[in-house]
């Protein structure tokens, strides 16, 4: 194709002869001694940072790439507490951090902030745009003001909390973790949710939990409508204990308690196990 050039990227994989590997999903057998001594609590390749080592980064004259590379450089130098000043609502800030970290963002972020995190604890003083915390694996994100649509989209683990209100399609395709909203949420919240928990302290827009496969939604206010296959569930003591602990943890425990919260779960009526067998298909044809 015109305009495209190939670059020779050196990979260790070629030296190991793995460049011809076929990805067939073959079952692996690996043996691991659970009683052996383990060196620490982080991934073997995680950056070794110290929470007591603190740095500040002024983002005013930096673009996204510069912010993210300087952030990584600070972590490589062992800084475990980093403050980003003047983020200026720039997009894609602080993505793909795979180690523990205390990150404070003194302002607002644009689209796709804090995506693909695996470990950090993040506090944002301002607002965030679309798809904040998308695909997060673990850690905590706390937003002090409002968030845009697709808040916590495809979340896989960890807690993502917005003290204000959020837009539509909150937690779309959620696969785990917890999404907590102090205010209201828009339409199609929890669309195609697969597992995990969602807490909405205020009201929800139309079609709450539409086409959810599994997972739990706790709703403090009212939903304009429930989506297809989203049905009321029964709140247990474990639910109440969990709700109380999580909401207190993020300073969102309502003055009137949690007695008014409703639980929404999947009705499992859309689970499709009725595909016709090949023999049956012949009869239809």
């Amino acid at each position, binding site marked *: 194709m015109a305009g495209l050039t190939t670059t020779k*990227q*050196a*990979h*260790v*994989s070629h030296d*190991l002869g*793995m460049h011809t590997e076929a990805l067939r999903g073959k*079952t*692996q057998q*690996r*043996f*691991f001694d*659970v009683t*052996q001594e*383990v*060196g*620490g*609590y*982080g*991934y*073997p*390749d995680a950056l070794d940072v110290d*929470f007591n080592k603190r740095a500040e980064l002024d983002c005013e004259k930096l673009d996204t790439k510069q912010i993210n590379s300087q952030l990584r450089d600070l972590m490589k130098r062992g800084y475990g507490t980093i403050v980003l000043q003047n983020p200026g609502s720039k997009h894609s800030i602080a993505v793909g951090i795979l180690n*523990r970290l*205390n990150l404070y963002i003194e302002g607002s972020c644009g689209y796709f902030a804090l995506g693909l995190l695996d*470990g950090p*604890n993040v506090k944002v003083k301002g607002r965030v745009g679309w798809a904040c915390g998308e695909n997060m*694996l*673990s*850690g*905590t994100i706390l937003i002090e003001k409002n968030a845009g649509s697709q808040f916590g989209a495809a979340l*896989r*683990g960890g807690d993502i909390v917005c003290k204000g209100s959020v837009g539509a399609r909150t937690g779309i395709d959620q696969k*785990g*973790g*917890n999404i907590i909203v102090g205010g209201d949420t828009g339409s199609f919240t929890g669309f195609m949710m697969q*597992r*995990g*928990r969602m807490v909405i302290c205020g009201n929800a827009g139309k079609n709450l939990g539409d086409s959810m496969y*599994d*997972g*739990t939604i706790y709703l403090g206010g009212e939903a304009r409508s429930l989506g297809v296959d989203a049905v009321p569930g029964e709140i247990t003591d*474990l*639910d109440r*204990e969990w709700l109380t*602990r*999580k909401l207190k*943890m993020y300073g969102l425990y309502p003055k009137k308690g949690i007695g008014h919260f409703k639980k929404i*779960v999947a*009705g*499992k*009526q*859309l*689970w*499709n*196990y*009725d*595909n*016709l*067998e090949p023999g049956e298909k012949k009869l239809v044809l």
Partner: protein
Amino acid sequence: MAGTSYKGSDIKSVDQFIKDKAGLSSSREKEIGQHIGYRYDVNLIPDYNRITPFLKGYLEFMGWDDLNWLEDVHMGYEEGEPAIFDRNCNGWVRIPKNVKLPNNQQDRDMMARELLIKFQMSPKHPMVQLNKAYRKVG
């Protein structure tokens, strides 16, 4: 219309999928020869009274006030063997046969969380090898 009612069966016992690895109870499951749904309760909330000392140390190291992503980790069952699903290598990690299983799912879940963390931190984890093989040089 296809797929308009749940045809699966409920989980009745903690050892159900060890004693019966196929787990076919409802008539539809027997008809299609496949268990419908998960082999454990994905919505089960952890009982924090059962947390292990190792997990406490891990949470302290990460700076978390609770189990965080581990709330979604449960002990499951693969082909009649107790196992944990590891999202980092997209496969089941089986529990060694010499490990004695507790008699309730909450304690089994805590055990699963601890073993999964130990496995992910181990230099024998497949991600370590993949990282060495595929990461960009320089």
